[in-house]
């Protein structure tokens, strides 16, 4: 059946900001879908609020809206664009939920927009837990016993009919949000309440537990003539009870017999037919009883998912691409398999290797958070490894995690065995240690319910690695394998049955003659190092840059070679580069790739600037091995990263930096602190993404910090959630903390002749002290004078030249109210803001930087104007806002600080700052209220400034409630404010009010440790009820202005990037 000609314009919805449970995989799938639909000649209209995506590059779709993913906004786009169809299955749960809302409110019907891929009924049958259960029953399939709860009145019945432990599963949520396992009677009601709250339709399933059963997933595709194929099976090593996103997984499944596997396959096919997903990919999850053949269906996701991205990368079968073609009418057999070219897509990949996926966690960022793993997802990223055997793949995956420090197991065996009995981020590390100490497979199985097959393999792996840690040295991969060598094999979807044309490789240890399968022509190759698993501080932004680098390298006549191990990303799409090596980013793996690439034709060099800190860390080792580093040299990298050297450089240039000192011990730190001056920003030297950074206000505060971070041994073991650091070579950095300063981020391009072009100057909304990755920022700066901007340009240029940067440079400044401009740090690499700036100014910074690294000069790049901010013109303002994962980490303080904790970002674009800010807030999921009650509590120093905010809000008709001190201050300024009890002052207090839903906006600026502890409960309550909670004064001011604009009833217009850039061209 050929493609449909009755539709011309297709609307695609992306998944928005990266959040736990919904990450880069939807950029991968969405980008594939856009490209395919464009290739097929359709007009594609895309809406996504996340600028750090390849899919929002202006050439990927016909029309691109970086706008909030809210039904009302998407409805505006529909009104404007009048698309014929909406494809909702490629943007995760977000797109599905928006599409559902637009169907229900009649928008789709009114504008004649057809849902393609999955229709409303199918979405509802799959996502509504009640309907799903019924649908399964009708298809003759088993699900665990359950009842549906739509209110707390159902709790008793649940307790009676289901019993404990019980699984709580909200409908229409993602990553298990709001779900959990109830073990104790007392937890039942609160957990059901939380689930009801999380479900957009207020529905949860109270379900019989099948904890400990095996968890399996099948990726299914169906076309409109009812052909069905199973792309891949995935087995979770962690049994039921740990969310699949948090589980270590292997593909294909390992422990089922053919008969058992075929039974799952038959059921998966029945599920997709019963739910009625007409075309595209779905994911079906099963639990299998380890003691019998009993199978129950857990759920089906009627859309592409994290697992389908994993399955695509694991098999070479591009699920999203094919799903998009199926949605416009093709059948599976009409679509060729990209990899073999010779065969159609209507087949099931046969693979001849093992794939292991490992989640990447960030618990160390959320001290106080409940550390266990359960049915709602907590991991922030994942790494995938391919090996010829399970052991090879597992050992590679272990190393792909790029942990800053490896978990330390307790010496006591009982404590160790207790640890592995509870699912946790470090469980497998402890489990390997238990096996290493000689605990039997039976013992470990009894504690973990992990299938003995895996445990046997792991025991052998541990044994063969001997004294080496599998997690940190290549020993585990190689030892116990054989003399022979490391060679490269290809991923070909067919286990070598047909010749493959797509160059997608992985390394494997094989017996001699270990002949490599890599084929290459004679163009020189450029190796681009990716950024590994997503983690807080290093996310999709870097992958975006790597993809741009690959595109540029190809355009410039070289072979682009990508090395990365993150299955979620566009960079690991085999289409992105000329050759993809799916490998851990460790020195020996990268060197092996370089050696392979240097064989036969020249290796021009390696690009380390785009993958965040990961490749930078490898630069010295690569260079020592004689591999050319393209762009900024390793000495310049060291110059920027070494505090002492960089400080001296700034001195020489005459630029101000906060006073600082370096201490080699706790005593030294305490001695030097007064000289630097309080408040102090303290951090250990190995810091990444602001890890373990804190502001201290006194010597006592410093002593406390040093104790908590293990610099002063308080007890032998560091407390949970803290880092176990190596004792040697530790330094402590002390910086004077610049209070009440405006932070500014600059991205610049620099060439080998000292040519510099300032691409963007971003002013942060929050003041310095909130990690740049966690603060909102505005481009162009909304309140800096031309003189200050010029000073920033001059200093950025000076630093670029002095460092000798070739490529991208990011500089962070703080502008102190009296002491003026200070340099905080310089990163000689692509920064997190590159995609945002690129989208704002309409120029692809990473691509331009890549051209510079390949030899061009700034002057040759045809750049408009003296800098990007001016090139952007006066036409529009862009605001970046972040999203924070506190709702996943019950117990952790939601206060922002110098340690980065956000997972993703969104962009708001408008003609003026308040509107752009309001859009960014809305896109980040914080809808600013236009009326109601605001709760205000600010530190003494902030009270005057808070008056301005309060006035604005009062004039708009808000009721203001405040803690006593703030209320008094406001009254003195003539603003009526009702005083309310603090927590300690007895009920009814502020948290009661928030919990009763009487507060619509919280503005709470804490200072010092005392206020932090007090504000904790307030912020926690606000987050739990999803009430916007603003913790800085600057944020409060911006919010008040944005509310004022919204209150005027102006519906912010939607603007496409393409219009924006045309406008800009006209302005300049």
């Amino acid at each position: 059946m050929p493609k449909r000609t009755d539709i011309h314009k297709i609307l695609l919805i992306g998944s928005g900001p990266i959040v736990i449970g919904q990450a880069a995989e939807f950029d991968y799938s969405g980008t594939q879908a856009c490209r395919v639909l464009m290739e097929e000649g359709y007009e594609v209209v895309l809406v996504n609020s996340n600028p750090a995506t390849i899919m929002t590059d202006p050439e990927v779709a016909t029309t691109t809206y970086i706008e909030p993913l809210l039904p009302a906004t998407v409805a505006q786009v529909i009104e404007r664009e009048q698309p014929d169809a909406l494809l909702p299955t490629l943007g995760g749960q977000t797109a599905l939920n928006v599409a559902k809302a637009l169907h229900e409110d009649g928008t789709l019907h009114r504008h004649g927009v057809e849902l393609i891929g999955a229709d409303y009924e199918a979405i509802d049958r799959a996502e509504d837990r009640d309907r799903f259960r019924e649908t399964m029953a009708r298809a003759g399939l088993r699900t665990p016993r359950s009842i549906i709860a739509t209110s707390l009145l159902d709790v008793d019945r649940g307790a009676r009919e289901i019993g404990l432990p019980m699984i709580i599963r909200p409908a229409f949520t993602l990553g298990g949000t709001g779900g959990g396992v109830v073990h104790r009677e007392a937890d039942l009601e609160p957990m059901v309440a939380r689930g009801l709250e999380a479900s957009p339709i207020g529905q949860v399933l109270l379900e019989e537990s099948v904890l400990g059963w095996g968890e399996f997933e099948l990726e299914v595709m169906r076309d409109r003539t009812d052909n069905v194929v199973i792309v891949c099976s995935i087995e979770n090593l962690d049994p039921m009870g740990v969310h699949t996103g948090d589980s270590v997984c292997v593909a294909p499944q390992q422990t089922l017999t053919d008969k058992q596997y075929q039974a799952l396959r038959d059921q998966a096919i029945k599920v997709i037919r019963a739910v009625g997903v007409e075309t595209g990919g779905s994911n079906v999850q099963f639990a299998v009883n380890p003691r019998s053949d009993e199978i129950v269906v857990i759920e089906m996701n009627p859309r592409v998912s994290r697992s389908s991205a994993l399955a695509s990368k694991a098999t070479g079968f591009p699920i999203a691409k094919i799903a998009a073609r199926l949605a416009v009418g093709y059948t599976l057999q009409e679509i060729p398999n990209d990899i073999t070219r010779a065969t159609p897509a209507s087949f099931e990949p046969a693979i001849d290797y093992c794939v292991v996926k490992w989640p990447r966690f960030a618990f160390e960022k959320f001290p106080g958070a409940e550390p266990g793993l359960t049915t709602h997802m907590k991991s922030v990223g994942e790494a995938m490894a391919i090996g010829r055997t399970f052991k090879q793949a597992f050992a590679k995956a272990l190393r792909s995690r790029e942990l800053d420090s490896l978990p330390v197991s307790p010496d006591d065996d009982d404590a160790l065995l207790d640890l592995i009995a509870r699912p946790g981020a470090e469980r497998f590390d402890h489990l390997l240690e238990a096996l290493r100490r000689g605990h039997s497979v039976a013992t470990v199985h009894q504690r973990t319910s992990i299938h003995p097959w895996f445990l046997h393999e792991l025991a052998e792996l541990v044994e063969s690695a001997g004294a080496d840690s599998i997690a940190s040295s290549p020993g585990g991969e190689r030892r116990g394998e054989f003399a022979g060598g490391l060679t490269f094999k290809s991923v070909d979807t067919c286990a070598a049955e047909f010749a493959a044309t797509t160059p997608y490789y992985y390394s494997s240890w094989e017996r001699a003659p270990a002949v490599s399968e890599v084929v290459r022509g004679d163009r020189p190759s450029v190796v681009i190092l990716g950024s590994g698993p997503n983690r807080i501080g290093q996310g999709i932004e870097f992958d975006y840059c790597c993809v741009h680098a690959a595109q540029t390298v190809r355009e410039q006549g070289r072979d682009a070679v990508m090395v990365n191990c993150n299955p979620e990303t566009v960079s690991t799409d085999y289409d992105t580069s000329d050759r993809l090596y799916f490998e851990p980013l460790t020195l020996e793996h990268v060197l092996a790739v370089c050696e392979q690439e240097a064989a036969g034709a020249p290796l021009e060099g390696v690009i380390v600037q785009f993958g965040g800190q990961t490749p930078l860390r490898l630069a010295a080792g690569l260079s020592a091995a004689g591999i050319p580093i393209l762009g900024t040299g390793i000495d310049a990298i060291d110059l920027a990263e070494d505090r002492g050297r960089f400080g001296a450089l700034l001195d020489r240039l005459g630029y101000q930096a906060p006073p600082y000192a370096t201490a080699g011990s706790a005593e030294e730190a305490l001695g030097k602190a007064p000289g630097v001056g309080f408040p102090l920003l303290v951090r250990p030297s190995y810091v990444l993404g602001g890890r373990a950074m804190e502001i201290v206000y006194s010597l006592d505060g410093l002593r406390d910090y040093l104790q908590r971070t293990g610099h002063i041994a308080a007890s032998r073991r560091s407390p949970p959630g803290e880092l176990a650091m190596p004792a040697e070579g530790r330094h402590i950095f002390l910086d004077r903390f610049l209070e009440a300063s405006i932070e500014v981020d600059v991205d610049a391009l620099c060439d080998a002749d000292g040519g510099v072009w300032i691409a963007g100057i971003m002013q942060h909304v929050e003041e310095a002290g909130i990690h740049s990755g966690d603060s909102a920022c505005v481009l162009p700066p909304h309140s800096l004078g031309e003189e200050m901007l010029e000073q920033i340009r001059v200093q950025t240029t000076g630093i670029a030249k002095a460092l000798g940067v070739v490529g991208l440079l990011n500089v962070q400044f703080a502008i102190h109210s009296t002491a003026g401009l200070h340099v905080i740090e310089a990163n000689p690499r692509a920064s997190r803001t590159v995609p945002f700036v690129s989208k704002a100014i309409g120029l692809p910074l990473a691509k331009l930087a890549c051209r510079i690294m390949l030899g061009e000069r700034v002057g040759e790049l045809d750049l408009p104007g003296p800098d990007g901010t001016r090139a952007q013109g006066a036409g529009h303002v862009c605001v970046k806002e972040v999203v924070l994962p506190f709702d996943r980490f019950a117990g952790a303080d939601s206060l922002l600080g110098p340690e980065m904790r956000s997972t993703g970002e969104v962009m708001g674009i408008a003609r003026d700052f308040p509107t752009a800010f309001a859009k960014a807030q809305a896109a980040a999921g914080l809808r600013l209220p236009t009326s109601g009650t605001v709760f205000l509590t600010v530190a003494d120093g902030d009270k005057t400034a808070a008056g301005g905010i309060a006035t604005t809000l009062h004039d708009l008709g808000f009721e203001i409630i405040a803690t006593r001190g703030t209320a008094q201050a406001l009254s003195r300024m003539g603003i009526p404010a009702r005083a309310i009890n603090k927590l300690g002052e007895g009920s009814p207090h502020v948290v009661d009010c928030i919990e009763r839903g009487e507060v619509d906006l919280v503005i709470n600026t804490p200072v010092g440790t005392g206020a932090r502890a007090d504000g904790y409960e307030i912020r926690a309550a606000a987050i739990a009820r999803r009430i916007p909670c603003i913790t800085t004064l600057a944020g409060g001011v911006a919010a008040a202005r944005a509310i004022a604009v919204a209150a005027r009833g102006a519906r912010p217009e939607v603007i496409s990037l393409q219009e924006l850039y045309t406008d800009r061209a006209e302005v300049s």
Partner: protein
Amino acid sequence: MSSRDATAYVLLEDGTRFDGLACGADEAAVGEIVFTTSMAGYQEAVTDPSYAGQLITFTYPQIGNYGVSEEAMESDRIHARAAIMRAGVDRGDAAGRGSIEGGWLAWLRDCGVPAITDLDTRALVRHIRDAGAMRGGVFPVRLAEARARELIEAEPAMGGRDLAREVTRTARLTLGPTARHGNDGPRIAMIDTGVKRSIVGNLRSRGATVELHPCTAGAAELLAGDPDAIFLANGPGDPAALDYVVDTIRQLVGRLPVYGICLGHQLLCRAVGLDTYKLPFGHHGSNHPVKDLSTGITEITSQNHGFAVLGPGGARTIDVDEPVRWETDFGAAELTHINLYDRTVEGLTLREVPGATVQYHPEASPGPHDSLYLFDRFVDAVRSAGADRIGGSPRGRSSGNGEDN
């Protein structure tokens, strides 16, 4: 873990050698080296009589994960001559799901079947894919290469080999239905050229009584039990070497409905005057898409054959998705199924006499169940007396359990 030095090797007739570790019976094995891409079902594979005379290379590296069990037996013994693996394991003690009865490697050893692991199977498979299936063997390292070469030379080539005679039964056996479907299930006479248990099982579970005959049985013997239809089984070797069976079938075509699977398909085709040829490296796996031309639906099929039937006009492949026709000695034959991987013939039906065949394995075991509907079609067609045509009625898709999807 001490030395991982090679203790066994695979040698091919063209001199290519791959090293590994001996892990089965400590002997040499020679025959035709083939590969299967199925990711599970290793026990079903080695006990499938169609693999007689062949050494199986498993492209999936992890083999043996769930041990062995009686229910996975496709015949009463191992027919493959050896197993060649990348990571074969013996996990008989892995208290897993279902009914594990022993470890895989231990079982191979007990059955006297050589096996080799830790071998770069992908390199071996790529070699076979490019050079074609060939003779070769698995040898312990103590056996010199020169001696190994002699053993390989002494092994006859697959083309022209009658292996069915080696795997067939000696005496007739009648097996009743395992489930009742209506009153009298059909009676089916099967020429056992090496039939898989699951084929017989699928017929019996649909109410059929199955008479299994040695492959040397003549037409009279086959008709003696008054069967409603003749079934031609799968089996090993070259169909061209089985003229005695072909002659028998020729006498039956037109008298009774004749149905065939795999080798049986090739034999029926030869019996009506069509020709077969040897594929470069055969089809062995569980993922080939086959299109049913009557419904337009693609089935994911289980495959295990080294020979195929030539299309009309002697073409090896058919470029259109249409029911093209052959002229046979018994009137027209029409293509019903085509392989979407390499566009070879996967099934046909005789238009003027009752008869239909498929090249692939609807009984799966191992592999997907997409094609079990063919057994329904067949048994229904045979049952409805006077049916003049089988295999052609589009029934939609339904699973073998008769449940609707």
